[in-house]
């Protein structure tokens, strides 16, 4: 049988899958042999959550070409609905994995619903106006969650807004207490689950991007008027990308939230949205592998910089600025390229001399 040559996209996607798998296997081995510091071990699930956030935002910003500054809003919507679901389900089910799975699905559905509610009206805006509206939406979600009180007792789930008016019966428990967030949750997220979520999201995104819908989304990004003139519905395809991305962000939110005993709404604020946007831009727009690497490295970086103590966020800020200058300024870029060419040349010559 003639072996067909793999096309470039397939090969590139395969490398990305393999990279994630390798990363997972290496860390599993390191954990098993006890070579991972507890600090890094605690970072593994957040890394997975941020990786999923980064690739899902990349679907909106990179593939669909719409700047979103409120991605953490979907994370928040997913996280808190996931917390409620998990808190309630734990009274009925034994298996933690099953609880986490159902909580993640519910979080994804709630975030997707939020994505539809937000996306339908706002996707007719464009550019900076769209950005500001997504920012506004993120703030609204934060306000709502900060004033939400949820608890359960024998009668089932109970909600109240603004003031805590819940009167829980015997054995009742508060799940979300307004600005104090959710407290005393069981930490049921696992690294394995995070890995599975990354793989599933990658699979969905790669298949979406390489499908007819994906090409329609990219056509709308590259030239909206031309795409519309050949009959591609702008609102339909932009909404598709937006909602898929929101659902993934919601699932990542559940994964993230259930890794801690306490989560407050202000964890998912404007700064978190920006952080994720930074991952996407540093990794390269539309480049999923880049997003994964950037998200993983930049989540670990502030921890690695701990020896700089007070200066670590300052170093991080300078790093960001220099990264952007180095990759985008024509002069600096040319200078760096000439250096790397010289190094390559020197290595090449050295190799010849030795050989």
């Amino acid at each position, binding site marked *: 049988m003639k072996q067909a040559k793999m096309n470039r996209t397939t090969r590139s996607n395969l490398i990305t899958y393999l990279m994630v798998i390798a990363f997972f296997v290496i860390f599993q081995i390191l954990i098993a042999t006890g070579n991972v510091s507890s600090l890094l071990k605690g970072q593994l699930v957040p890394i997975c959550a941020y990786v999923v956030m980064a690739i899902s935002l990349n679907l909106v910003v990179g593939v669909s070409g719409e700047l979103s500054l409120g991605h953490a809003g979907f994370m928040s919507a997913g996280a808190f609905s996931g917390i409620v679901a998990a808190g309630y389900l734990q009274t009925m089910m034994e298996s933690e994995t099953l609880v986490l799975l159902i909580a993640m699905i519910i979080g994804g559905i709630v975030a997707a619903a939020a994505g539809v509610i937000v996306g339908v009206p706002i996707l007719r805006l464009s550019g900076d106006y769209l*950005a500001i*509206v997504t920012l506004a939406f993120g703030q*609204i979600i934060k*306000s709502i969650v900060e*004033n939400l009180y949820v608890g359960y007792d024998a009668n089932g789930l109970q909600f109240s807004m603004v003031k805590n008016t819940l009167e829980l019966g015997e054995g009742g428990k508060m799940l979300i207490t307004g600005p104090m967030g959710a407290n005393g949750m069981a930490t049921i997220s696992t690294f394995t689950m995070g890995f599975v979520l990354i793989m599933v999201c990658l699979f969905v995104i790669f298949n979406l991007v390489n499908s007819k819908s994906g090409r329609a989304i990219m056509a709308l990004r590259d030239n909206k008027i031309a795409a519309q003139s050949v009959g591609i519905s702008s609102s339909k395809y932009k909404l598709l990308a937006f909602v898929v991305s929101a659902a993934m962000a919601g699932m990542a939110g559940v994964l993230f939230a259930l890794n801690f005993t306490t989560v407050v709404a202000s964890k998912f604020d404007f700064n978190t949205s920006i952080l994720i946007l*930074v991952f996407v831009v540093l990794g390269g727009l539309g480049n999923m592998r880049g997003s994964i690497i950037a998200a993983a490295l930049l989540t670990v970086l502030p921890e690695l910089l701990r020896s700089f103590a007070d200066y670590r966020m300052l170093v991080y800020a300078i790093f*960001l600025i220099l990264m952007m200058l180095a990759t985008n300024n024509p002069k600096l870029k040319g200078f760096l390229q000439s250096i790397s060419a010289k190094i390559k040349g020197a290595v090449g010559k050295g190799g010849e001399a030795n050989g």
Partner: protein
Amino acid sequence: MLFLSYLISGISLGSIYAIIALGYTMVYGIAKMLNFAHGDVIMVGGYICFFACSYYGLHPLVGIVMAMVVCTVLGILIDRFAYKPLRQAPALAVLITAIGMSYFLQNSAQLLWGSGSRVFSSVIGKGSFSFFDGQLTINYLTVVTIVVCIVIMVGLVWFINQTKRGKAMRACSEDKGAAQLMGINVDNTISLTFAIGSALAAIAGVLLCSAYPLLNPTTGMMPGIKAFTAAVFGGIGSIPGALVGGLLLGIIEIFAKAYLSTQFSDAIVFAVLIIVLLVKPTGLLGKKINEKV
């Protein structure tokens, strides 16, 4: 009467937003970038004035002038080192650089001045005017804020429309290439815009801290985001739009706090923004640019 006093405090808060929004909108108009570090320049202005007045006991006016000078220099330096090398770069790269700059300013402030909050003593003496037999009182700060905002607006409109430099600015925001061919120094014009925007941010910082006297390294964040919203609300790039947007945002915020819900005031402000943008996608006074094929 209560309504009137809410309205006046809304206008006062809105004036501060408008002054900050002017900085955003001018920079956006000319450099087509969202300057996220603008909010942090406000914070720096607040700190400079705080130290000048409270530590060295200088006259408040001297403090304000010092804050303006420092912020102007800071604005020019930020533009020179972070934004100028990226003039031709994609918009997102510039956005991330601006965010990096914002982190940089916040963390530098934290290292230099500590993360604790400081109590800013108002630069304007306490006291108030009373009307209708004391049913309506307006304190001096409110009056000064509104007057300052009006003076700045009138001054800016005059500068942009009547002077040669202002003309150069308008030319650069229309078409940089053509402006350069006409002998306008585009880089200097952009620097000038940053300078003016930062000086305004210093004034806004002092007024803001006088009204809400807690000063810490993240003081500028929320007013920055709100003012940015105000700029978009009025139509980003438009100077009268910044005024209208800022005032409306301030009034809506105070009314929402007074009549609807304190906790949800921010959510209400942003919800109104979304509704306005859905009806008028380029803001209240923004120009509608039709795409040509």
